[in-house]
């Protein structure tokens, strides 16, 4: 039995009701639907806004983070007045301002193997708007095990991917990518950046797929992967097939319950950009400043990309981008003390691993990168 629409709702959704494929019954299906959106960042913003505007009756939002100034370039559900607030509260308030007739549930927590089944239980479908590999594998496995469709979207710089992984009817995320990249090989958006409108495009497509699934209209992206390149301004669709050897949806699945995804991926389940190489190898910005003031002879190596030097720079540093690091070790002398830095300490921690495995011992990582230097030592530098 589908819920009735009030006169006010009929007025609000009139442009939907005019489409024969939606109509009154379709709008009632939307009102009866429940959708869980995991992540309220770049992708989660447009997904949540469009689903709320479309009249999806119950929307769950999962995020553990706070609204940060660097989010506002693309996370359009949040605003300056909500800086420092919980993302789920900021997003909920915006959704209810847009449509007070829907129900918005918030989960201010990191989704994990321990809480995922309980959080997902009340919802018909799940939208993957996360920003890291461990959570993507968790969301995939959760959806396969609970037989819920997973509307997947992913972005990096100018490229986006969208699919609907519905293991009962087609492949899952693991069929396409059986394993994640090793830690550090693929930079996150916090390290590599993302074109601000890209999540708008990809998130809108995820929202469209979710609405189509609820309405039962059109051809969902099951068994297809949509690729978007904002530089070429091109869309391309490729075919995806179920992998009979898939570890979770194949013929003989090895994974029958949720696992530890941080261990599986070898990386943390967040995209925070504060990196450390461990206490033994880190040097704080204040300690580095003190050593430089003492006149200690050390080499400062910047492992960022050349264009980042225009944003901020440490005097006397030399540039060896991380991508070239392993092939340029001959430029470094293991007898000399070396301090590595990047934006936030993540890439320099990777460079440090390369040096240490090559036998270097007198090497340190600037903890939390040049942004920490800007915060603690030299406020004339910007934080980015």
């Amino acid at each position: 039995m589908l819920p009735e629409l009030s006169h006010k709702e009929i007025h609000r959704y009139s442009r939907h009701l005019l489409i024969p494929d939606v109509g009154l019954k379709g709008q009632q299906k939307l009102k009866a639907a429940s959708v869980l959106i995991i992540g309220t960042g770049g992708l989660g913003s447009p997904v949540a806004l469009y689903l709320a505007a479309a009249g999806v009756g119950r929307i769950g939002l999962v995020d553990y983070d706070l609204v940060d100034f660097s989010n506002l370039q693309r996370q359009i559900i949040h605003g300056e007045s909500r800086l420092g607030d919980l993302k789920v509260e900021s997003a909920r308030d915006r959704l209810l301002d847009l449509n007070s007739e829907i129900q918005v549930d918030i989960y201010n927590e990191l989704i994990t193997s321990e809480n995922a089944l309980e959080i997902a239980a009340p919802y018909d479908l799940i939208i993957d708007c996360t920003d890291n590999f461990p959570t993507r594998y968790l969301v995939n496995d959760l959806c396969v095990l609970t037989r819920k469709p997973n509307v997947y979207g992913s972005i990096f710089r100018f490229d986006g991917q969208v699919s609907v992984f519905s293991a009962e009817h087609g492949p899952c995320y693991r069929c396409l990518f059986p394993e994640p990249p090793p830690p550090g090989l693929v930079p996150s958006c916090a390290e590599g950046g993302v074109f601000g409108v890209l999540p708008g495009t990809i998130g809108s497509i995820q929202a469209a797929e979710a609405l189509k699934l609820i309405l039962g209209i059109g051809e969902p992206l099951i068994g297809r992967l949509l690729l978007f390149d904002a530089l070429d301004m091109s869309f391309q669709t490729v075919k995806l097939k179920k992998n009979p050897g898939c570890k979770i949806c194949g013929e003989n699945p090895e994974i029958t319950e949720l696992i530890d995804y941080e261990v599986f991926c070898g990386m943390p389940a967040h995209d925070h950009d504060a990196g450390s190489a461990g206490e033994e190898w880190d040097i704080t910005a204040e300690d580095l400043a003190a050593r430089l003031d003492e006149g200690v002879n050390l080499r400062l190596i910047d492992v960022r990309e050349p264009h980042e030097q225009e944003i901020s720079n440490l005097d006397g540093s030399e540039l060896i981008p991380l991508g070239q690091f392993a092939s340029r070790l001959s430029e470094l002398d293991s007898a000399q003390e070396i301090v590595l830095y990047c934006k936030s300490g993540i890439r320099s921690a990777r460079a440090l691993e390369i040096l240490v495995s090559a036998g270097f011992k007198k090497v340190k990582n600037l903890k939390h990168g040049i942004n920490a230097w800007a915060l603690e030592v030299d406020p004339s530098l910007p934080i980015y």
Partner: protein
Amino acid sequence: MPILKIPSPLRPYAEGQSSITAPGEKVSEVLEFTLEQYPLLKKHLLSDDHQLRPFVNVFLGDENIKELQGIETPIKENDTLMIIPSIAGG
């Protein structure tokens, strides 16, 4: 000659190129030619035993080469190969 399209996440390892024209009658030959020119791409594409790594896919048109003959898949003069990497941003 066949064309190999490089997605933006991997372009820094291919001197910024968005596509590479590479001779070859099989996918493996195109990849080998490409990796000779851009060795930094190797760890993103192939394992030490010259198999595609499990977090990257290569498509010939709209078909995953895994569904064809893997890196031994034959290709024609005007074919376009596309690398599809794992990305996780959101």
